[in-house]
């Protein structure tokens, strides 16, 4: 069946085959990469890609020898080469595991040791025979993928997709909470082993596109990007696949435009470009979103603080209808006239403030009264709560209230009021206002 499929595929042009390969590789690496990133095994993937290399070189030797014996037609039989690579990868994973059981070394040190020795062995072996075609595996060459390679890539993708479909729940639980995986009766060792084998397969096929050293570009970078974008597992998987496929396809197309431009680095750079974009612009965790969020929070708090102080000035003067003077406001805020003017401009801009008498008198708008009375109420309620319920000293409660006044929601306020028996004055004797769009009635 393989042969039939390969013949059917060989009718396709090189570019189409490269694109189909990128697509299949993207699905494989994108799906598995999600687990790798969440399991904190990114370095493990990197180790695998290096450990696989001596297998590739060895595979070229074995394939050449088999061709001389007349067992296979081509000196570069991809099935033989990839099988050898798979064996080397699994061997690398095994050595890491055995070192874990028999030494005190932590995972990262074990990975470092195994990664370098396997890669070194591959390079050294390369020196002996210098088989042509190894370079494609070092730097990646989707353009060189032929119909037989493509069958293998598609086969690997099919195996990975089917395995994940069947085992998605066990894999999720094992990655999230392996103690609970035991509880559910999952075979944790078996699942881990299966995952390692799938991962090695993915690495072996991805290697043809991006080269051994840059497999992380397909396995880790897109999944890490997806993790920046979402808090949902299925969505993370979908995005991870999307980014891997995107990087693969765009990278393949770009590298095809210039002779001698290896595919691997271009794909890696594309994947990183997507990563940087997400890092900056991701909806919730992106730098820009966080910056705007922090900025608007700061602005809101500043506005509430200014309103609160203006409220205090007005309150002290018995809420005069003509409003408070700019100088009294500046004195309350402890500001020079220039800074006071800037803050007043800000309130005006927000629609909280109306200025009368040539700008000298400050009156709150309906919206301004609403905000100001709410924040003053929050502040005073919280002070009362701390003194009454938490038994703070009255002179210790102000600083806490300065923060909490901006955090209390209506629901928390309702609970506070109930708990405190709908109080009318705070611990310092000041009245606690009700939210209102008009000035409170003068009390005295």
């Amino acid at each position, binding site marked *: 069946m393989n042969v039939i499929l390969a013949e059917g595929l060989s009718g396709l042009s090189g570019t189409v085959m490269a694109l189909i390969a990128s697509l299949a590789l993207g699905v494989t690496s994108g799906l598995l990469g999600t687990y790798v990133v*969440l399991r904190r095994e990114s370095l493990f993937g990197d180790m695998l890609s290096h450990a696989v290399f001596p297998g590739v070189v060895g595979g070229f030797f074995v394939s050449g020898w088999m061709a001389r014996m007349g067992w296979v037609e081509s000196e570069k039989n991809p099935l033989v080469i990839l099988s050898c690579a798979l064996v080397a990868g699994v061997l690398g994973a095994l050595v890491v595991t055995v070192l874990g059981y028999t030494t005190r070394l932590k995972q990262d040190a074990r990975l470092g040791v195994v990664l370098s020795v396997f890669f070194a062995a591959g390079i050294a072996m390369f020196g002996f025979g210098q088989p042509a075609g190894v370079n494609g595996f070092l730097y990646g060459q989707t353009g060189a993928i032929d119909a037989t390679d493509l069958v293998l890539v598609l086969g690997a993708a099919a195996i990975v997709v089917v395995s994940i479909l069947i085992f998605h729940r066990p894999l999720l639980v094992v990655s999230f909470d392996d103690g609970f995986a*035991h509880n559910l009766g999952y075979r944790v060792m078996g699942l881990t082993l299966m995952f390692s084998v799938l991962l090695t397969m993915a690495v072996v096929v991805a290697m043809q596109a991006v080269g051994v050293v840059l497999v992380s570009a397909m396995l880790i970078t897109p999944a890490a990007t997806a993790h920046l974008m979402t*808090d949902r597992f299925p969505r993370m998987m979908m995005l991870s696949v999307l980014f891997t496929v995107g990087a693969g396809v765009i990278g393949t197309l770009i590298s095809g435009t210039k002779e001698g431009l290896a595919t691997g680095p271009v794909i890696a750079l594309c994947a990183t470009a997507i990563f940087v974009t997400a890092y900056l612009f991701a909806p919730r965790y992106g730098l820009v979103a966080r910056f705007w969020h922090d900025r608007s929070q700061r602005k809101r708090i500043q506005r509430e603080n200014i309103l609160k102080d203006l409220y205090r000035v007005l309150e002290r003067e018995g809420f005069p209808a003509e409003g408070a003077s700019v100088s009294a406001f500046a004195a309350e805020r402890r500001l020079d006239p220039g800074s006071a003017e800037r803050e007043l401009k800000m309130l005006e801009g927000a629609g909280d403030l109306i200025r009368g008498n040539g700008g000298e008198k400050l009156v709150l708008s309906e919206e301004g009264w609403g905000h100001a009375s709410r924040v003053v109420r929050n502040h005073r309620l919280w002070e009362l709560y701390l003194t009454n319920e938490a038994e703070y000293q009255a002179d210790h409660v102000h600083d806490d209230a300065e923060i909490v006044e901006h955090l209390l929601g209506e629901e928390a306020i309702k609970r506070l009021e109930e708990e405190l028996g709908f109080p009318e004055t705070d611990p310092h004797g000041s009245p606690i206002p009700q939210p209102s769009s008009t000035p409170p009635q003068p009390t005295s």
Partner: protein
Amino acid sequence: MIALETHDLTVTYRKRPVLYGIDVAIPEGNLIGIVGPNGAGKSTLIKAVMGVVRSTGGWVKVFGKPVKQSLPRIGYVPQRESIDWEFPVTVMDVALMGTYGKLGPFRWVGEAQRRKAREALERVGMLPYAKRQIGNLSGGQQQRVFLARALAQDSDLYLMDEPFAGVDAATESAIVELLKDLRSKGKTVIVVHHDLQSAREYFDMLLLLNMRVVAFGPTAEVFTTELLQKTYGGRLTILSEMAEKAAREGIGKIHPKNEP
């Protein structure tokens, strides 16, 4: 009937003995607290029962059968700090995991599972947060989510590793109510606990543990100054020193029984 029985259960970690020859038989339908100082092996005991930590000797039976056969009847609540709170799962996702045990590999999660998960979340007051990612919760809320997952498992024996660690007072009393409710339904709940004062209040029976079983019995009988001093007043110094040394030097395993 006996819910959990261990015989001569022994665990070593990196060649250091953590638990020696634990013999205990816990009767069904009780709230049991495991108490002891730091490093006494409380969590290890639970993990060894679950098979998360490999025991080096002895056996465990749950409802008279080897643990592997009884797993569907056990609900396990891990320590909160063992969880990666950045993991992209929601409160609902975690509660649903409780239903996975009775779901074959080829079946999708359906309405029956969702209903069960919702009920469990409702019982711990976390249903309003069902769509939240687990990292965006307070410590007490996080603990409740994991209790909901255990409830969704519909187990007969619950093993909980420090469910009261780092939770607020409201959550603590909610958890206590929940445990009592489970007991009233004939369930057995075994809880690793670090606070002696409340241990006396919460549990019917106490297992005093310090690398070996110091005492096990009804709280009123076991909660004595003498026994607590024995539990908390240092380890079996010479015994554990020798056991460690034997392991370090690679000369066989000293395997002390419960002291005479």
